[in-house]
Structure formats: structure tokens, C-alpha cells
């Protein structure tokens, strides 16, 4: 990897070092008052942490990230982020200050990339901050270099591949130089090379001192990108919170939240069952046949 360094503002400048950057107490969220996405979430995230939100599809990971980014407000409970009440941020109060410090990379890059060119998209955030054109240009160059997509600056998003779109979407957030980066399924639907390139970029963002919250259901990347794992079940409740090693070795937990599954095999006269990851389900039965 020869990419440019991922730089960022010092972490925790705006927050009392003794306070978590996110504090959630009994947070609930339901869409249109009917479909419950999150239930009774209690969580604290500290500056500099790299947190993986693990959960199956529909477990509320994306909703939780939107709450942390202040574009949704909890329907019950309280959420304070960087010393601000997130309900006020979602209502537009302090939103300008808040979004300078927290950036969200959406799961679908077609939502994130709404401008006519990649450069326009990367410049959008810094322009909204009211920065001068020279400063905007410098930030764009830095973010594009960090994602290794400088050559795509003048391209239209509809011309990009899935991996290129994903990198452009991350660059559009990095140009804000946020202290906290929230990533929603950053490696979903990517080819292996692009996936591991992004894992490397996420590691570099963490090494640069940024706080990271990453929603994923891909277990193989978790130990590489996170030093803490929060597990959500299919009802949007937090059911585990700990180090990657202990969470990923708890087969019963992973089975119960549908992150791995178990099925029965028959090889001649031999019958056996064993768990598989829900995604990237590649395994060999050679050992079982002997």
C-alpha cells in the first residue's frame, strides 16, 4: 500500500476527555411509529475507539449510525454526542458544528454521491463549512489522494465501478476532516481486492487517531478494523459488547444473532453439523471425510 496518509484533526478537542463522545441511554427508534428498529440501547463510545457494530440484516445497525450522525433523533431515550443533545442536532440546532466533527459514509454510495462529478462531491462538505476555495481545493486533493482516486476527480459518479464509488463516498466524508467517522457496511458487495484495500484504508484512519464506528456483518474483517465489538440482535437490542477475540469465539452468541448458521451435512455414512459465517461461506469438508 502506497497511499497517502489519512490525516485528521486531533481527537476529542470538543469533548471533555472524561466524557464519552457518544452516550446512549434507553435509546429506541421506530419508523413511522410502527416498525421498531432499535430497542433500549445503552452504549458509550469513547474518543479514539474503533467500534464494530455487528448484526444481521435488519438489526438496526444503519439506523444506529444515522442516530449517531444526528440525522435521525431517537423516538425514546436520550443520546448525547460530543456534548450535544442529538435531538437538537437532528432538529437543525448545532447541526453545523456537529457535522464538522462527525462524518457518515452511507451504505449506498449512490446516495452519498449526489453531485455531477467526484470532485464536486468531495468539495461539497468543505464548501458547506464556508471554507475558502484554496482550503477546499487542498482538502479535496488530500481526501482524493488518501482514497487513491485522484485520477477520478472529474469523472461522473455513474461512470464509476462499485469499489470506486465506495472510495469516492469515503473521500467525500474525509474532506470534512471529521474526528469521528461512521461507516455503514463499507466492504459490502465489493470484490476481494477492493474489500481489502478498504480494510487497509480503514486501519489507516484508525491509526491517524480518528474514532471509528463501523457497521458490518462480515466477521472476517472485524479483528482488523475494530478493537471493540457491539452486537445487535434481530430486534435491535444490544446483546454483547466486548473485545473482538471474545465475541468472535462465542459461537452460541453468533448463532443466536444470525451472524453464522449451522447446517447438517451427509458425506457417505458420516453425518455432522457445523457453523458457517453468514457471509463469505467458504469451507472444506476434506478433513471430515477421513
Amino acid at each position, binding site marked *: 500500500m502506497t497511499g497517502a496518509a489519512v490525516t485528521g484533526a486531533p481527537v476529542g478537542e470538543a469533548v471533555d476527555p472524561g466524557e464519552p463522545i457518544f452516550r446512549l441511554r434507553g435509546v429506541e427508534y421506530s419508523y413511522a411509529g410502527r416498525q421498531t428498529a432499535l430497542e433500549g440501547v445503552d452504549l458509550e463510545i469513547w474518543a479514539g475507539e474503533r467500534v464494530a457494530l455487528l448484526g444481521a440484516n435488519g438489526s438496526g445497525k444503519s439506523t444506529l449510525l444515522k442516530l449517531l450522525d444526528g440525522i435521525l433523533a431517537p423516538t425514546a431515550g436520550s443520546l448525547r454526542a460530543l456534548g450535544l443533545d442529538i435531538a437538537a442536532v437532528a432538529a437543525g440546532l448545532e447541526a453545523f458544528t456537529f457535522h464538522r466533527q462527525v462524518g457518515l459514509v452511507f451504505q449506498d454510495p449512490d446516495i452519498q454521491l449526489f453531485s455531477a*462529478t467526484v470532485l464536486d462531491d468531495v468539495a461539497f462538505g468543505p464548501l458547506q463549512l464556508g471554507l475558502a*476555495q484554496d482550503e477546499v481545493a487542498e482538502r479535496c486533493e488530500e481526501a482524493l489522494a488518501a482514497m487513491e482516486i485522484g485520477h477520478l476527480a472529474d469523472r461522473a459518479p455513474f461512470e464509476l465501478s462499485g469499489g470506486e464509488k465506495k472510495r469516492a463516498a469515503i473521500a467525500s466524508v474525509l474532506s470534512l476532516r471529521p474526528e469521528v467517522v461512521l461507516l455503514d457496511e463499507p466492504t459490502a458487495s465489493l470484490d476481494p481486492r477492493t474489500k481489502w484495500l478498504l480494510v487497509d484504508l480503514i486501519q489507516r484512519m484508525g491509526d491517524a487517531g480518528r474514532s471509528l464506528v463501523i457497521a458490518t456483518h462480515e466477521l472476517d474483517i472485524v479483528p482488523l478494523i475494530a478493537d471493540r465489538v457491539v452486537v445487535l440482535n434481530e430486534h435491535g437490542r444490544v446483546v454483547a459488547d466486548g473485545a473482538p477475540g471474545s465475541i468472535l469465539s462465542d459461537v452460541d452468541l453468533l448463532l443466536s444473532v444470525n451472524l453464522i448458521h449451522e447446517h447438517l451435512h451427509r458425506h457417505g455414512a458420516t453425518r455432522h453439523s457445523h457453523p458457517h459465517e453468514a457471509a463469505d461461506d467458504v469451507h472444506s469438508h476434506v478433513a471430515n471425510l477421513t
Partner: protein
Amino acid sequence: MTAMVADSRASDGRRAADGRIGWLEKTVGGIAGSVERAIFTERHARSKGWLQRRDPRAKLAGFLAAVVAASLATSIVGLALLYAATLAAARASRVPFGFFVKRVWLGIPFFAGIVVLPSIFFVPGDRVFDLALGSVHLAPSWNGLVGAGLFVSRVGVSVSLAVLLVLTTPWASLLKSLRALHTPQVFVLVLSMTYRYIFLFLHTANGILMARKSRVVGRTSGVEQRRWITGTMGNLMSRSFKMSNDVYAAMLARGFTGELRVYSDFRMRPADWAGLAGALAVSLAAVLVSGVRG
């Protein structure tokens, strides 16, 4: 995207068992064609040519001056001068020459000719011939023919200029150059977002049509097709509504507070000023050669 275009082209050319091309196939072909044309145009706009290197604001100003000159020119010499300059610029910009000339002149005489056709019979002057068809006399005048020729040439030159501008300027840059004419930022941003998402919806619509085609066996009745297209339109509308909400959330997440700012890294260099001066000079000459209409 390329695969999609290729698939759609195949389906466009494929005929139903009874020899007819269904409207769905035509729609798929049309969608693919739109995307293909847009990609072709964008590729040319980014290639290395004389006009591609010019500042979009200089190009836009030069283009407007030339179009005004074409509309003011009253002699074929003035229009020929403008067209010759347009062809020279196209050559220097490495625009495919046959494509450029054919794209304009295969359609324009037909459409402009229909518009101007009645005038050749009603303009007073010497008649070219007088053909009596019962009580009706078909008698075009020389003045009418000259006027019609000028009109078609004027339209052809103006459309050539527009095609050349679009082929040598990325759409995003063209929109941003409108700011030089004091177009409101919100207008520029909305246009650029429309341009961005129209391709996404073309892609989605194409996917829906393909998915339906892959699951339909035999012929369906007109009623079924209309019912399906109505449902699909509703589906696309609700998707676009959801996406507009999501995009707005993505804008908020990056600090959007209702006041728009558009990025522009345009720089007018000496060559851009020289190009603009050249365009203005040719436009002025075209008008002076033919004399301004009273």
C-alpha cells in the same frame, strides 16, 4: 454499465417470435441508447483537444456570441464563415468529423424545412414555377426559397455550435459555467443533481424491464402490459421519493444548512482569452459581411 448497454442492444435488435419488436424491447433499447450517448459525449468532452482545454466560461461566451451572430446574419456568406470556423474548431478538438456533420445535417433540414416550407409559397416575388392542381396553384417564389435556405442554414449552424459545445465540455462544467451568467446557485445545483440521478433511474428502469423480460414467457395482452407499466411507474416514483429523502439526509450529514455553495476551479488563461476574442471576431465578421437585418 457497459454490460448493461451491450445486453440492451442485443434485446433491442431481437425480434419476437412473430417478427415484431415489442414496446418493452424498444423501451429497453431507448434507455440503453440514452446512457450510451451520454457516455460517448462525456468521453469526448474529456479527451485532449483544443476546445476541451479551454475554460468552459470562455466557450459558453463564445458560443452565445456565435449563435447571436448566426441569428443576425442575413447572407449565406456570413453563415458560411461561421460554419467554417465551427468545423475548424471541431477538427482542432478531435471531434469525429463524420459523426459531427451527419448528426446535425441529417435531421435539421427535415425539421427546419417542415417549419419553413409554407413560407416559400407565400413570400412575394418571382415564381420558380407554377403548378396548377385543380383550383390550387403550387408556385414557390425565388425570395421564399432564398429565405428558407437561409433559415435552414441558420438553424444548422446554431445546432452545430450547440453540438460542438456539448461534445467538448463535460456537462458538469457546462452547468457550472452558467454561474458566469449569474445563474442562481440553487438552479445550477438542482440541474447537476438531476443530471446525476437521471442516469441512476435509467439504470434502475432498465433493470426492472430486464427482470420482467427474463420472467415473461410468451406474449402478454395490452391490458396486462399497461397494468404492469402503471405498477412500475408507481414503484419507480416511490423509490425516487425514498432516494430523495436519503440524499437530503446525506447532504445534511455533510453540513448542508440550506445555503448552497458550488465548487469552481475554473481559471481563465491567456489561451482562453485568445479563443474568446477569436470567437467574438468571427461572430462580428459574420454579421458585418452580411449586414445586420433592419
